């Protein structure tokens, strides 16, 4: 039903490619890699689900203060943005950085929502690095049982 609004073939392909790259870099899944191995990728990952009453968006944004994540809904576009700082300062000459795979810098992701969502009914929770945004659907769009007289 909402597939046409939520399919991002480009992104899917991109994600698959990233996973393949990671697997190539570390051999088979689960194989111990050297503590000094390197890999690269994208941020944040997003999962979307739907119920008859709402659209559920999960964004995997670890290591942020909940006050530093911006969640906005403009018409039918949900925007998640923020900034993540680097874990170590590069100026420090006494350290060696072996892996810097974690995302650092500004990020922004836009998710187009189906037409039946109600921008006034959005809730967002942040827990353990997982941002969960619930966007309610309009009452009129929800399935209704029709009473037969």
């Amino acid at each position: 039903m909402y597939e046409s609004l939520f399919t991002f073939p480009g992104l899917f392909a991109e994600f698959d490619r990233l996973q393949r790259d990671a697997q190539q870099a570390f051999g088979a899944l689960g194989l111990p890699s050297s503590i000094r191995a390197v890999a690269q990728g994208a941020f944040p990952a997003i999962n979307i689900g739907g119920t008859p009453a709402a659209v559920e968006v999960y964004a995997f944004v670890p290591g942020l203060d909940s006050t530093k994540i911006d969640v906005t809904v403009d018409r039918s576009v949900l925007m998640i943005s923020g900034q993540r700082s680097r874990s170590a300062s590069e100026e420090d000459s006494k350290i060696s950085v072996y892996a810097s795979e974690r995302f650092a810098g500004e990020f922004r992701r836009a998710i187009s929502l189906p037409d039946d969502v109600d921008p006034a009914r959005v809730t967002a929770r942040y827990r353990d690095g997982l941002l969960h945004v619930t966007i309610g659907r309009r009452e009129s769009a929800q399935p209704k049982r029709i009473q037969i007289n």
Partner: protein
Amino acid sequence: MNDKQQVSRSGQAQAAPALIPRVDVIEDDTGITIFADLPGVPKDRLALRVEGETLQIEGDIASEMPEGMEAVYAEVQVPRYRRAFTLSRELDTAKIDAGLKDGVLTLRIPKTEHAQPRRIEVRSG
């Protein structure tokens, strides 16, 4: 680091598939610090194991799913992270310090004392 050891380990069948969490690995004079992104993993679902020279990080994603939710689009398709590292001998695995905050695991692995750089005093006279 040690190819033979890694090959023999790969023979052991790993359980369920898992995502490879992104990490930063930083070394300073006194030890190595690992930052691992484990979004969605609460403290009680995280397991850290040291076996010989292998450190394994494993965590399950606990996300509240409303009843009857259908997945529409998923970039994270496996609710589990797993990654293993081979440690080197100068690291003191008995003194690993671990903290988990907002889905970021911080592991501090100190070097054994004799492996830390020392300044040698030069006596005069």
